């Protein structure tokens, strides 16, 4: 790397651990290390600490009771626990409905379940990433065991109307369970599951300044699941394994801080995101907004730079210390570009050159100004290498006239 300065605009990938959160975690490593299941006070008092943490996470979800909260090791584990957990309780139904734009941690599980004999219906989205609700409603049948929909999309930030979807589902089939992957919504918008028809909701700590390796799952008290990990009685028999005390403490602390910062997210973070978005779209003629949905989390923008390839853009940004993500095929080595942008019908011209910028409450005005200054230089340089000069010229003229 040629630049020691880091402008971190990839907060949908992971976030830095908040210093205060880390501080609160530290005593539980080598000082208060007792097993929470012990009878003696040295261990047992850690179960009180966990209980306190559970209360905080309950408030974060807006749940009724802390008994509805299960600690897991990741967003993926939360999703796997929820989905496999309810399916193995209700064996009489073998139909699942989900969306085409779910995160791979959920999508690949459904691909696996298809091999195991489940029928899965994948619901599409429109060009700005909004879900086709009618298609979803029509797909619900007697046989539908589960409807699974993300709260906010990781690539575009589009928010799905999960409360309304849950209501729709229950109005057609009361037996159908609803799982919401809220990994990208947590810490960005207010969660409030209490008075909804949502049965389960999963989150991951490292997306809102808790460490990696800790997640949580909300399970409505009336919803039964069978455990994914069988063994001890921890987590009310729903997830075996000695509790990861320091990380649970960290998750709760981060959740509380994130809740307190929600107003900042929807004002300052949103303002900075909008500033970046508006500036890039106006300064760079081959920039195209890929995530124009009305309802979006405040920190995310997805911009396609037409006729330029995403990995090359990221590598050039890296030289300036700017970190972001791309939906291009090349960045992952999978050869297949983003399934989300493809489902939205984003044209190939912009698909391979799509860049996702995701901010956090630590993003500063100076960082955004620096990015706004550097991006046009980067894209201009790379555009010169493109074999599509004729198309680029046409684009330039068209934009010029408009």
């Amino acid at each position: 790397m040629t630049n020691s300065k880091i402008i971190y605009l990839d907060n949908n990938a992971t976030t830095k651990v908040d210093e205060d959160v880390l501080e609160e975690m530290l005593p539980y490593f080598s000082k208060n290390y007792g097993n929470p299941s012990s009878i003696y006070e040295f261990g047992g008092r850690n179960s009180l600490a966990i209980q306190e943490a559970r209360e905080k996470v309950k408030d974060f979800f807006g749940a009724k009771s802390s008994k509805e909260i299960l600690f897991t090791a990741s967003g993926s584990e939360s999703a796997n626990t929820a989905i496999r957990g309810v399916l193995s309780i209700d064996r009489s139904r073998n139909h699942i409905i989900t969306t085409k734009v779910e995160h791979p941690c959920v999508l690949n599980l459904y691909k696996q379940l298809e091999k195991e004999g489940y029928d899965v219906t994948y619901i599409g989205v429109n060009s700005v990433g909004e879900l086709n609700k009618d298609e979803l409603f029509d797909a619900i049948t007697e046989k539908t065991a589960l409807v699974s929909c993300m709260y906010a999309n990781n690539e575009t930030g589009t928010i799905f109307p999960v409360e309304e979807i849950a209501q729709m589902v229950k109005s057609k089939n009361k037996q159908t369970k609803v799982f919401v992957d809220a990994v990208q919504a947590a810490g960005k918008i207010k969660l409030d599951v209490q008075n909804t028809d949502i049965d389960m909701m999963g989150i991951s700590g490292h997306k809102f300044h808790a460490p990696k390796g800790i997640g949580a799952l909300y399970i409505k008290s009336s919803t039964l699941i069978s455990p994914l990990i069988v063994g001890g009685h921890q987590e009310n028999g729903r997830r075996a394994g000695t509790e990861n005390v320091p990380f649970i403490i960290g998750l709760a602390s981060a959740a509380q801080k994130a809740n307190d910062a929600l107003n900042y997210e929807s004002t300052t973070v949103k303002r900075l995101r909008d500033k970046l978005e508006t500036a890039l779209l106006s300064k760079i003629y081959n920039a195209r907004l890929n995530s124009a949905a009305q309802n979006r989390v405040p920190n995310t923008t997805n911009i396609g730079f037409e006729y330029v390839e995403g990995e090359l853009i990221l590598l050039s940004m890296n030289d300036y210390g700017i970190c972001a993500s791309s939906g291009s095929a090349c960045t992952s080595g999978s050869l297949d570009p983003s399934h989300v942008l493809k489902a939205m019908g984003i044209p190939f011209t912009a698909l391979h050159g799509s860049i996702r910028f995701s901010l956090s409450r630590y993003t500063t005005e100076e960082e955004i100004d620096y990015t706004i200054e550097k991006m046009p230089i980067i894209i201009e340089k790379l555009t010169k290498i493109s074999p599509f000069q004729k198309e680029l010229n046409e684009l330039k003229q068209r934009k010029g006239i408009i």
Partner: protein
Amino acid sequence: MWNYTDKVIDHYTNPRNVGSIEDADAIGEAGSLSCGDMLKLYLKVDKNGIITDAKFQTFGCGSAVASSSILTEMVIGKHIDEARKITNKQIVDALGGLPPEKMHCSVMGHEALEAAIANYYNEELTINTNEDIICHCFDISKSFLENEIKTNNLKTIEDVTNYTKAGGACGRCKGKIQNILDEINNAAPKEEKLTKTQMIIKINNVIEKYISNELRKDGGDIELIDVDDNKIKVKLTGRCQACNRSQLTLTHFVEATLKEHIDENIEIIQV
């Protein structure tokens, strides 16, 4: 993050010979926008057949730009017939190596060079005729795959995907790629008669790899019950059991697949 060599980083950060040549004597193209990378190569050739100038324009990742950039350096000053001998392996070597998943970038460079030289001699490129397309996602023909497998000594489907992209998107052509690999690498030489245990293992492998997955898509499956010389006894399970088309599945799909991979003379018996 990719583990790129300093040479690769240098060439994508400061690409040499970017641009087009107005009065080029040869132009070659490879790749396409929809596939995610594309290269246009321009050559200026003097009356003695020496390449005096080369320029490129690339839509693609870091290694695609680096491969294109170094290729222009490699061809300038060479006789066009000398340049024709450059292989994708030489492009990779000149860059000090590429990550396995990025080998196809060097292949694209080589393809564009081939196309440019063919253009210089007014030859028709014969690859990519419709009847032998193996990978429809990336429009890759059988002859092209065979050539790359032989040139680069590729052994597995993963190798083939890394070098050519074939099989890298939907993955439906992987069976066909395996067949081509088997043909070329002679993976199934005529052996002596298998023992019963060897036979069972072999049949089970074929079932796992090619048959079960397909049946599971329809909610069924298949179980190997017994092997008696060339008679293979199987049981269809799950939904296949009750399906009135199960006999068709058995002869058209199960038997055909097993015959293809095991032996022409086997007989399938449903129990």
